[in-house]
């Protein structure tokens, strides 16, 4: 969906699993183009992406099922290129072109 490469933007893939897709119009996989820098001119990180998803992508009004205290709510794992974000610097990880960011809600059913 992204246009020809632009210095000011980054093309990434964002995925939702474990029921979170229901908050995003049942889309499990989005190709997104996000600004390369955030409001303060620093490189866009995961914290910025989460705000961006909430403000411009998520149509569902139940924001509290995705964010709490300005970060993803407990019970959501954030995976950066198939690794737990704890291994990558959590929400301070600076996003790179082509990154795959997966948000997984934990399941409890059995």
């Amino acid at each position, binding site marked *: 969906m992204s246009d020809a490469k632009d210095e000011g933007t980054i093309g990434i893939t964002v995925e939702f699993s474990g029921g979170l897709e229901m908050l995003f119009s049942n889309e499990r996989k989005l190709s997104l183009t996000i600004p390369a820098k955030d409001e303060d001119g620093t490189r866009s990180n995961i914290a910025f992406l989460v705000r961006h998803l909430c403000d411009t992508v998520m149509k569902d009004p139940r924001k509290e099922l995705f964010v709490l205290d300005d970060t993803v709510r407990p019970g959501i794992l954030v995976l950066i290129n198939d690794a737990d974000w704890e291994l990558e610097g959590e929400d301070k990880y600076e996003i790179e072109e082509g990154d795959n960011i997966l948000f997984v809600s934990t399941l*409890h059913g059995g």
Partner: protein
Amino acid sequence: PPQRRWPLEANEYKRYGRQLIMPEIGLQGQLRLKTASVLIVGVGGLGCPAAAYLVGAGVGKVGLVDGDTVEESNLHRQILHSTAKVNMTKVESAMIALHSLNPNVELVPHQGRLTPETALSTLQHYDIVLDCTDTPASRYLISDTCVLLGKPLVSASALRTDGQLMVLNNPPLPPGNTSGGPCYRCVFPKPPPAESVVTCGDGGILGPVVGTMGILQALEAIKVLTKQPSASSNDSAPADPPSLLIFSAYSNPMFRTIRLRTRKLKCAVCSAHATVTPEALNSGSMDYVQFCGTVDPVDAL
């Protein structure tokens, strides 16, 4: 039970022949299974297939924990139960089916839900635990108890068309030893908001999805129990790096493996700064239901 050092009975060679001849199991692996004990907490969509394949494989002792009775709405996915067993306790129903599959396995019934007061005394008699339950409260309780007792934990869950699987506390080293595997609290330090938790009753569940996760729990348990000691020492070979298997029946690819973190330095259970202790559990001062919150049905997702 005491370690048995003599080889198998004649009928066991026949029954387990197809797995005995594989280098990954072998006679030593079969003997390890025979002297091993597994506790399955929850005999529903996950616990039924997990129990069937562990009993089939010849694990020496299998314990079953559940407080529910069989309902007709269980039968599409809980394949150890059957129409004639509706209203029987799930533990009793499962024991009948499992005994007819393999009478060589000792089955131990634990009727009723696991509670903080019963968890330590129930789990301590087993070598490995399978979390086949369906609420956040039970998942934290089981994981905490496994860390306190030093038992590896195979945790799975499923909802709608998705499933998840993790082998936790593997290796099951004492709290504070950072070489131990992460626990459920390392991965999920805080419980999810109660209104975000969806049950299979509310959200639905596709039978083969939860069935796949349950069978994979049996597989992971067999892998842990039959692991061969490394050549250079008496310890087992190093465990696989911690990972989360994500299954999504309608995605392509259906399976993804995610690298997980190691033990969290500030984990409330498995770190040097642990605050969850056996005394706290036994005293009943830990309220897991309160910890995980409750929800007014109107607010539920």
